[in-house]
């Protein structure tokens, strides 16, 4: 049966139905929360007891004063630089890999059969859905402890994210310039280099910078599994109960993230004004 040209007017569903939906949703939610709290064996009462509060206070007091011997500060600075380098190189590798994967994952023009679109998108989704930290834990097997594993882990996860974003950008790019070259018989590589990419470059760059910002944050914690940077220092000193040193590293982490946040806010404001 074909659709009528003018669909008949329908009344909105009666209110009782949406009310029932609302109650159903609330019941589902409460059920999920209740089941979670019931099965987790949280021992929150133990945590909220006076004894635990005293323990917590003593634990926090151990952090002060943060270690500030110049030799240690130098080590922390090196760790921060390693974190920055990991995130930078990881993002750069990811941008290259993402662009390479985005090309087969995008339908570039109307007559593009895009045979590899499905499989590449599946690969990108798989890369994306495994977090950096899990990648790092897996890569430690073949790359060994240290920042190299962390860099690769960042690159793998981020290439999944960027590949997908780049593919969307390629598919949504204005078609005019590319079509103009195509009807002149220019080959696909040159169309990409001289028509599509120049149009998209600002967008691709802003996605990459955004991911870099995220990756600095991720890189600072990646080390917890042994993949270099500030996180590795943190896990090491926390494991040995060097609380003042841990406090210094935590402050360094917060400063790094605050610095990145501030810079990104400033650059965004200067660009939008």
């Amino acid at each position, binding site marked *: 049966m074909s659709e009528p040209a003018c669909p008949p007017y329908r009344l909105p569903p009666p209110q009782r139905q949406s009310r029932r939906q609302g109650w159903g949703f609330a019941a589902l939610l409460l059920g999920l929360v209740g089941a979670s709290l019931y099965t*987790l064996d949280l021992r929150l009462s133990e945590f909220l007891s006076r004894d635990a509060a005293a*323990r917590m206070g003593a*634990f926090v007091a151990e952090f002060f004063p943060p270690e500030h011997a110049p030799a240690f500060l130098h080590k922390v600075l090196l760790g921060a630089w390693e974190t920055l380098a990991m995130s930078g190189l990881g993002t750069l590798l990811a941008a290259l890999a993402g662009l390479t994967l985005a090309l087969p994952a995008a339908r570039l023009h109307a007559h593009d059969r895009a045979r590899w679109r499905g499989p590449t998108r599946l690969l990108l989704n798989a890369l994306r*859905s495994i*977090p950096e930290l*899990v990648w790092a834990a*897996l890569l430690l097997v073949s790359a060994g402890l240290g920042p*190299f594993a*962390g860099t690769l882990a960042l690159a793998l996860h981020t290439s999944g994210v960027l590949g997908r974003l780049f593919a969307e950008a390629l598919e949504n790019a204005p078609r005019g310039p590319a079509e103009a070259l195509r009807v002149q018989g220019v080959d696909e590589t040159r169309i990409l280099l001289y028509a599509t990419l120049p149009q998209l470059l600002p967008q691709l760059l802003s996605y990459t910078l955004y991911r870099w910002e995220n990756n600095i944050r991720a890189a600072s914690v990646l080390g917890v599994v042994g993949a270099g940077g500030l996180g590795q220092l943190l896990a090491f000193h926390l494991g040995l109960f060097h609380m003042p040193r841990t406090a210094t590293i935590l402050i360094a982490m917060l400063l790094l993230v605050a610095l990145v946040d501030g810079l990104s806010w400033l650059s965004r404001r200067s660009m939008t004004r």
Partner: protein
Amino acid sequence: MSALATAAPRRDPAFAARLSWSAGTLLLLWPLLVATEFRPWLLFDPDSLRVSGNFLAGFWPPAHEANFLLLVARETWRTVAMATAGVTLGLLIAAPLALLATGTLSISALGGRMAPLPAALRQLVRALLVLLRSVPELIWALVFVRVVGLGPTSGVLAIGLSYGGMLGKVYAEILESGETQAATALLRNGCGRLQAFCYGLLPASAAELSSYTVYRWECAIRSSVVLGFVGAGGLGQLLDSSVKMFAGAEVATMLLVFVALVALADRASAWLRQALG
């Protein structure tokens, strides 16, 4: 016109600039390569190849003994439960803080400028939210594992604190950016702040608030797997111990389960957000 066309260069006019930019980038890249100990050939070292080859060869077939699958199912549920309980705790932290931080609900601001004390309080609450948010949940978990011991409690607390900060900040932003006339009108006519919130602000932004919460729940599922790596229980902890024992088959099963879990959470959250409007 024709003179212009014949004068057009055959070579790329920006060639020199492109070349120098690329060379400069490579020069800048060198310290990064040194700092990250970037030695890809180590991956193809015979020893390393043998170890990773053995590890990867174990991936197929994925482990599928009934006992192990049961264990994985239990830990998967614990992961979801940890995320849900964590977001609930985050919500309990975020809602009052967001109410305190929302400038729209200020009575003194009705007269033009907010009085100094309420303004200072709002800045203080905002700073607290930023502090909660800017410590990554993994670090919170690492610290809480030292205090409350191994287990899901530290994971729930970690998610609760960092998500409390995130949710609180975004709630306050949503409440301030939505339709505020109704709330202002209520306040001007002598309503309390809570009444103005319930009848003025909430109806206008309920959909956005709940949809953001559902989105955060989806993120929490992802991060609760990661929290397992520092000993907060759930799928991550199981995955960590399997990787350390080089048990490829078990790792393969868990990765598949994890990808499926993330995809499912993604679908569920998209569906819920659509239903919420």
